[in-house]
């Protein structure tokens, strides 16, 4: 049986992928990519979760045996920043595209062919 967190993560990934594959507006495609990244991050965090344990900050009452795995959380931190960077780049490319073509519809932006 698959857990609800995994289910949520996979659903987010698939919803994002659907937007990327089907939508025609560049901005909607980029939103799709971000949703997909969120799904992947949720997946990473839930893989690191251990039932009944708390966040890996070792203060009073939380010893090494009461904390969840810190690595996936560190990875997610990195992955989020990378996602932000990609989004920023993509948006500035979208700004250029809009300036050159006057539209953000991918079906009308098609000069490179073949």
């Amino acid at each position, binding site marked *: 049986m698959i857990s609800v967190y995994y289910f949520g993560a996979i659903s987010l*990934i698939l919803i*994002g*992928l659907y937007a*990327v594959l089907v939508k025609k507006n*560049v901005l909607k*495609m980029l939103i799709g*990519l971000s949703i*997909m*990244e969120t*799904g*992947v991050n949720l*997946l*990473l965090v839930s*893989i690191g979760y251990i039932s009944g344990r708390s966040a890996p900050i070792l203060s009073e009452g939380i010893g090494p045996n009461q904390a969840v*795995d810190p*690595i*996936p959380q560190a*990875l997610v931190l*990195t*992955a989020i920043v*990378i996602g932000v*960077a*990609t989004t920023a*780049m*993509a948006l500035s*490319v*979208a700004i*250029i*595209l809009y300036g*050159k*073509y006057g539209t953000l519809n991918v079906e009308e*932006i*098609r*000069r*490179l062919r*073949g």
Partner: protein
Amino acid sequence: MNGQYASLLIALPLLSAFFVPLIKGLGERGIKYYLAVITALQTGIAAWVFQQVYSTGKPIIVMAGGWKPPVGINLYIGHFAALFVLIVAVVSFFTAVFSIWSMKVQPIDKYAMLFLLLMLGATGMIATGDIFNLFVFMEITAISAYALTAYNKTGEAAEASLKYMILGGIGSSFFLIGVALIYGSLGTLNMAQIAQLAGNMNPTVAQVGLALIVFGLAVEAELFPLNAWAPDAYQAAPHAITVMFSAFVVKAGLYATARLLYLMQAVGSWHDVLKLLVAMATLTVVVAEFAALRQKDVKRMIAYSSISQVGMIAFALALGSQAGVDAGVFHMVNHAVVKALLFLGVGYVGIKLGGTAMENFQGLGKRMPLTAFALTIGSLAAVGIPLFNIFWSKVRILIAGVEAGYTWGVALILGASVVEAVYYLRFIHAMWFAGEGERMREGLAISLILLLLAALVIVIGIYPDYIWSLAQKAGSDIFNVGQYIKNVPLMEVGA
């Protein structure tokens, strides 16, 4: 000197990229020369590392932060990494020199930073020994490549960059899911430890994880069906950047694919993933060759040719035999030399004559004989004529393919090579036997680089033994995973 100083390979480009905003006052020319000096320094460090690794025969393990491998991140600079880090640095140096003369689009300071970081990303991807660190370096490479693809700020460039970004975004998400699955079942991210523990992995998890990683890397490695961005990006990017894409960015992706593939050798479902990759590679070759045939733009044609060669390398790497991997690495070296030559020559002509359409190349033999000569050598080599370097690696790949039992793949690749010969001969014909033109002056530095690369093509073609012996060492570095695990000083963690 201590092997830990090999971390300068990463530190130097970073430090000098961060330094660029502070020396903006030097002006355009100053920054371009600065770029050339830094890449020359990087070449020096890479040469030192290369000399260390090949003279001692032992890899250099850089431990970041002083933590032993599974706890900290390590760089693994073995025979393969040493060779390719050197190639990355040398090609970057050549393109930096080429940029001094060719880059006109503003803002140059930003160009210099992105250039250095692209070099850094490829170096890191080749050198790292940690699977998530590989992801980080892959993103450094990819994001600077997105920016550089769109750097010319034309509509086409932005469109190519957007395509690259969307495919790259999907690819990196897939890669990360693959990493999550592998981490989830093994609890480690260190490549050597993954290889050590891979045998105990649940075969379904391993298969899904590995296939996701292969798909994710296929964007960078330009494998069908995730390579739709490549010809557009090659065409739209500044000429200097195209050289880098073809010569080492794609190689870094291929290497990462091969490395992760062989690390997971012990997994039960390993051969299924190999078959998937062989199919993808063969399709890449066939589709790219036929697309190249109908191109009217020379840069785009060579881009397709480059993709097909990349497919061939991937085919060799996916054979799962020592001979295949060796041949693949040999082909990587040859491809880097030949495609650097071709793209530099084409870029030079493109700037001199204002475009890379086939018409501009008519009568090139009379207008720019040196460049035309170098381009001819490159084209003949790319076709695989004997006594040029690619001939040897192509033959070795085909033999390895037959030995591994993929006769159908070899037959398809041979058929595609005939197509390749057709369009390259058409190109040579256009340069020497069509059109007229006045003689033009050819720049000294660029002619020297072109002739040097052309000479290298011929020298390797006549004496392939030295490079072949390097390629064999580098190939066994990838193939021989037992040795890889032994080389990394893994620390005992956990019970």
